[in-house]
Structures are given as structure tokens and as C-alpha cells.
């Protein structure tokens, strides 16, 4: 059985799609942010690989064809950004100031924690892109020499936490303006947080999803500069 899983061409891809679908179902049934489909699928697959004593490399031999699509898909993120371009132009001052501050504050905090905990340069650049969409974060972590799989998990944890905590955090900081709420959620916790912003309201949702792409691109610039500091 172990040999079969190791040699199967479609096992990796089927497990990835299938358990992701199961995660979507569980998320819908329970409504819990922790039931993030990526997280559910990854945990089940890790357990399955451990139980069948299959190597990650053997699983990835089939699954890598899915990951292969990531670059063209990231390029496509320009399409929703273009579709929301009018909204971006209308609120450009507040949006650009808010998102730029978010990107700089995030980099400074991660630098601070890294110094505090004595993390290595590789660990530092692994976490630098953690508040942005996984697609850009992965590419950036790889280019800067970080641990890509840790970046992916850090991005997911960030998103899930942002989703769960958003309402309480914004209340604590007395943020009441719908545009400010959307920008805060989208630029700190990307698409997973944006799901919460959409529940809060239409403006919050639109502003949050707009912030994802802008924060993503700005973070590339900030991360390159910060990666030279520490």
C-alpha cells in the first residue's frame, strides 16, 4: 500500500482537491473561521502521509502541477484590481495612506519581534510577507531566501486570526468608519480577513479586497528594503 501511494501519479492531486472540497463543506456547515479549507486539507493530508508513511516529495510529485498554476493566477489578480479601479481612484488619499502605513508598520513590527527573539535573517524574511495574499507572499519569501512552507502557514494563521478578531480589535481601537474598517482588515489579514469584512458590510468588503492587491504590491517594495536591514 505504501509503495502504491508513493508511485501514484494522481494521488497527490486528488487528495489536494478532494480534502479542500471537504474543508469547504466543513466551513459552510460549522461557520467557524478555524475551519479554513486550506488548513483542513493540509492537516488531513499530513496525517494521511504519516499514516501511509508516504514522503512529502512523493505526494508533491502529483500536487506540484496545481502549484504550477500559481504564477499565472497571481498575474490575474490585476483583473479584480482593474475592476475596482474607480473605487480606488475615488478614495485614493485615505486608501494609499492607510495601506502604506499598514505595510510599514507590519515590517517594523516583524523586525522588532525578530530582533527581540534573535531570529535569523532567513526566519525574518519568512515572516515579512505574512500579512499579504499567499500568492505574492510565497513568491516573495522564495526570492528573499525564506522558508516558503512556513510563510504559507504564517499567512493562513494571520488570515484566520484577522477574521476571528477583526470586530473586537476595531472596537478596541475605536475604528468605526466603514472605509477604515475595510482597509484595516484587508491590509492586515488579506482574503481570509476580507471574508469577515464582507459580513460587516458592502463598503467594508470592497475596501478590504481592494487593499489586498495594493498591500501585496507595496509589501514587495517594503520587504526588499527591510530584508537589507536585518
Amino acid at each position, binding site marked *: 500500500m505504501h509503495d502504491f501511494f508513493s508511485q501514484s501519479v494522481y494521488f497527490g492531486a486528488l487528495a*489536494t*482537491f478532494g480534502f*479542500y472540497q471537504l474543508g469547504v463543506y466543513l466551513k459552510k456547515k460549522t461557520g467557524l473561521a478555524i475551519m479554513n*479549507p*486550506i*488548513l483542513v486539507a493540509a492537516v488531513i*493530508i499530513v496525517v494521511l502521509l504519516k499514516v501511509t508513511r508516504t514522503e512529502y516529495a512523493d505526494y*508533491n510529485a502529483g*500536487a*506540484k502541477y*496545481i502549484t504550477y498554476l*500559481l*504564477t499565472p*493566477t497571481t*498575474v490575474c*489578480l*490585476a*483583473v479584480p*484590481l482593474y475592476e475596482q479601479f474607480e473605487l480606488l481612484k*475615488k*478614495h485614493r488619499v485615505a486608501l494609499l*495612506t*492607510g495601506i502604506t*502605513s*499598514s505595510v510599514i508598520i*507590519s515590517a517594523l*513590527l*516583524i523586525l522588532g*519581534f525578530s530582533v527581540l527573539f534573535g*531570529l535569523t535573517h532567513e526566519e525574518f524574511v519568512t*515572516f515579512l510577507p*505574512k*500579512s499579504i495574499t499567499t500568492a*505574492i507572499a510565497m*513568491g*516573495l519569501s522564495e526570492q528573499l531566501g525564506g*522558508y*516558503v*512552507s*512556513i510563510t*504559507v502557514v*504564517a499567512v493562513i*494563521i494571520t488570515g484566520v486570526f484577522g477574521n476571528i*478578531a477583526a470586530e473586537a480589535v*476595531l472596537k478596541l*481601537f475605536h*475604528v468605526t*468608519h*466603514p472605509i*477604515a474598517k475595510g*482597509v484595516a*482588515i484587508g*491590509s492586515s*489579514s488579506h482574503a481570509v*480577513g476580507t471574508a469577515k469584512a464582507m459580513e460587516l458590510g458592502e*463598503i467594508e468588503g470592497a475596501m478590504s479586497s481592494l487593499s489586498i*492587491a495594493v498591500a501585496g*504590491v507595496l509589501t*514587495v517594495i517594503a520587504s*526588499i528594503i527591510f530584508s537589507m536591514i536585518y
Partner: protein
Amino acid sequence: MKYLRQIIIILFISFLGEVLNYLIPLPVPASIYGIVIMFGLLVSGRLKLSSVKETSHFLIDIMPIMFVAPAVGLMDAWDLIRGSVVQYLVLILGSTFLVMGLTGVITQLMLNKGSAKGGEDHA
């Protein structure tokens, strides 16, 4: 043949991104050059939204599935991070909490300043 053309355009822009990543000595991922090229073409009107729309929306819809395999890759990195998990969690949760709160405060200040001056920002 609509999808075939859309796929060719998207792959061509991705390829251009790779070329730039190779030529320019900066750690900018190929996909970022691609986003900028695609966005520039759309805004300038050289590329019509209808030439890439359906395939783009399809790929973005299934995008989260592309992160499952890299997340599973953590099992190979586990030995490396086992000792630092608590520090990592403090860093991730602490910075997310502060970034969200402070960004909200700053954006709200800018919005209030804008509307006090009769600027263009209204809720």
C-alpha cells in the same frame, strides 16, 4: 476558442514576468512583474477586460487550492521550527493585532481630515 486565447495571453504575460525576473537583479517575483504588466495593459486600454476576464476569474476562484501542497510542505520543515513555535505565534498574532488596529486608526484620521476639508472621501 475564447478560453484558448485568454490562456495564451495570461501565459504570455507570466512569461514576460519571468524574463524581467531574470534580467532585473531584484528579488521581485515574476508574478509581480506580471500583475503590473497586466494592470498597465488594462488601464491603458491596450488589453480589453473581455480578453482575459473569464479565465482570470476561474483561476482566482480555485487559487486557494494551490496553497494546500506548500502548506503540507511544513511537515518536512517541522524539525527545523519545532523549538521556535511559540515565538513564531507571538510574532504572527502580535503583529497582526497591532497592524490591524493602527491601520484602522490612521485611515480613519485621514478620512476625517479629508471630509473636514470637504475632500473627496465620503462613506
